[in-house]
């Protein structure tokens, strides 16, 4: 059975200017042992997608408007609140972007791991302590015993992120959501964390949903990739296909903005402009305002996500073959 199946997810926010849809008809699935990466710029809706899966859409104002999130076949959107308390932190765990602020400053490291074990696995305090120390060792701490009684401010960012991962792994989650887990860290520490995630997903056979804007991380870790833009999926493919045959101009733009060490490119290319705000979307294709190939059709009609190669879909008239690149 598919581990996670997100179907037509729509998440909305109520703002002063009306209801805005920040996640628009998003569907994807993650299998056990598989890593799916969601890629996109800030504001593309990727973090809100992950918070929707966790059931942690910011309140008040935010809500899942429609769609299904099936975890091993059972829908989390329609599940009662009580059931979600059992699932969050146990079956689905999350590692956040900001390791510096994601741990509670007034509780010890050990306390913050052990409380999850006590709550979900009903361990005694002493058993939880032993298991917490075991988890700390597993995420690579040599002096786990002494760390147990230390406070977050005594640790570096990379160490704190490893503690966050230890917390997330404490109940052997079926699905681990990692929201930009390495963004705030040094490059060398990033490599350690990625390595850790890869090893752990293999050990536990968990599915990983990786939210990132770093294509290097995607290449390193992901099996499947979803590219999001302005709340929609614009391209979906296996990682090798995406890197070798990017279909959507946005994906191509992202690829081109990655600095290369081997080429003789003098300047970094960038995609001009910003992601449109969800309350001021263009009428046609949402990327049309920034797309180098945009034509009249793109401005008037919104393309749909369609299969363009085997195992690869894109939301683009160009990729569909309905329009062609103008000779430049």
């Amino acid at each position, binding site marked *: 059975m598919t581990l996670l199946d997100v179907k037509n997810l729509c998440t909305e926010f109520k703002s002063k200017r009306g209801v805005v849809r920040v996640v628009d008809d998003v569907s994807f699935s993650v299998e056990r042992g598989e890593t799916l990466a969601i890629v996109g710029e800030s504001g593309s809706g990727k973090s809100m997608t992950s918070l929707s899966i966790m059931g*942690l859409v910011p309140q008040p104002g935010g809500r899942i408007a429609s769609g299904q999130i099936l975890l091993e076949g059972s829908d989390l959107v329609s599940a009662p609140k009580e059931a979600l308390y059992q699932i969050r932190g*146990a079956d689905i765990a999350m590692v956040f972007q900001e390791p510096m*602020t*994601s741990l509670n400053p007034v509780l010890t490291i050990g306390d913050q791991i052990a409380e999850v074990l006590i*709550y979900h696995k009903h361990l005694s305090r002493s058993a939880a302590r032993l298991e917490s120390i075991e988890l700390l060792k597993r995420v690579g701490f040599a002096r786990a015993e002494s760390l147990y009684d230390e406070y977050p401010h005594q640790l570096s960012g990379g160490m704190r992120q490893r503690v966050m991962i230890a917390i997330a792994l404490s109940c052997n989650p079926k699905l681990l959501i990692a929201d930009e887990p390495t963004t705030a860290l040094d490059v060398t520490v990033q490599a350690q964390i990625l390595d850790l995630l890869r090893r752990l997903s293999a050990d536990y056979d968990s599915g990983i949903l990786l939210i990132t804007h770093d294509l290097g991380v995607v290449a390193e870790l992901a099996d499947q990739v979803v590219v999001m833009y302005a709340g929609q999926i614009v391209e979906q493919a296996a990682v090798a296909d995406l890197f070798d045959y990017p279909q959507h101009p946005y994906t191509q733009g992202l690829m081109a903005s990655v600095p290369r060490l081997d080429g003789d490119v003098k300047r970094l290319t960038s995609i001009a402009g910003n992601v449109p705000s969800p309350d001021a979307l263009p009428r046609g294709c949402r990327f049309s305002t920034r797309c180098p190939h945009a034509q009249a059709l793109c401005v008037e009609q919104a393309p749909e996500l369609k299969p363009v190669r085997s195992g690869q879909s894109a939301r683009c008239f160009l990729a569909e073959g309905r329009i062609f690149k103008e000779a430049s």
Partner: protein
Amino acid sequence: MVSYLIRRSLSMIPILIGISVISFSIMYLAPGKPAVMNLDPTISAEARSRQLSALGLDDPAPIQYIKWLGAALKGDFGVSYIRKRPVSKMITERLPATLLLMGSSLFLASIIAIPMGILSAHKQYTPLDYGITTGSFLGIAVPDFWLGLMLIMLFSVNLGWTPVGGIATLGGDFSVLDRLHHLILPTIVLATGSMAALTRYTRSSMLEVLHQDYIRTARAKGFRESKVVMKHGFRNGLIPVITLFGLLLPTLVGGSVIVEKLFSWPGLGLLFIDATFQRDYPVIMALVMLGAVLTVIGNLVADLLYAMVDPRIEY
């Protein structure tokens, strides 16, 4: 920690000396000498100067101050000009009544205000939050004397449930119930104002905490809202509130002039206001210094409590 305590204690000395010099000077400069205000106006000039020198009031101000300081350091705050009794005795007589009233009102304010503040923050922008906020502003806006009078009229005069004033039933034996009975109204009146301020303070502190990333982490662990707010939010939200308690400590002894007067509560507030009007220097100085010492200690206690609650602070 020990060296921090010693350093802080030593630094109190210049602060307290400074406070005593300033308050002594202000008092000396204020119009209305005790000799003029309180001595029998019909006595001869010779008798008057004899009395002045007996009180030490004909010395130059610096000498008066040094004499006062020397005695105060030995714990002797002199004798009241008016009541001819040792000041320390007058204070210790009245201190328990004030401590009881202020302590119980602070207690009442805390047990109501802190939960209300937390609730108000957790349910931000809901009718409950608006209700609590409106109530807080009413509490701040309503003057003590008016609220006190209204409560006396309703509960003491019309309903006859509570005594009109005083600390004990006249002629009755001491009993805890009788004392509590007399305590109810003044405590409520005094608590109203600080309750309102404390609610607002707790609310804003908790609001800031509840938007922190570690609260989201706690939710991601699957905890129920009550556990998220109480275990992960409250201890962090409490840190700024502790300052307020440190600052409230001196008011515990300062008492409230208005409420003590209104309910004829024999506390230090009444003593202080009487002493000021009568230019009873020894009493004023003793009470000012008591307040100063408690303010300084209150700050120290708040700083020590910080370190207890927040592991990031070390001394």
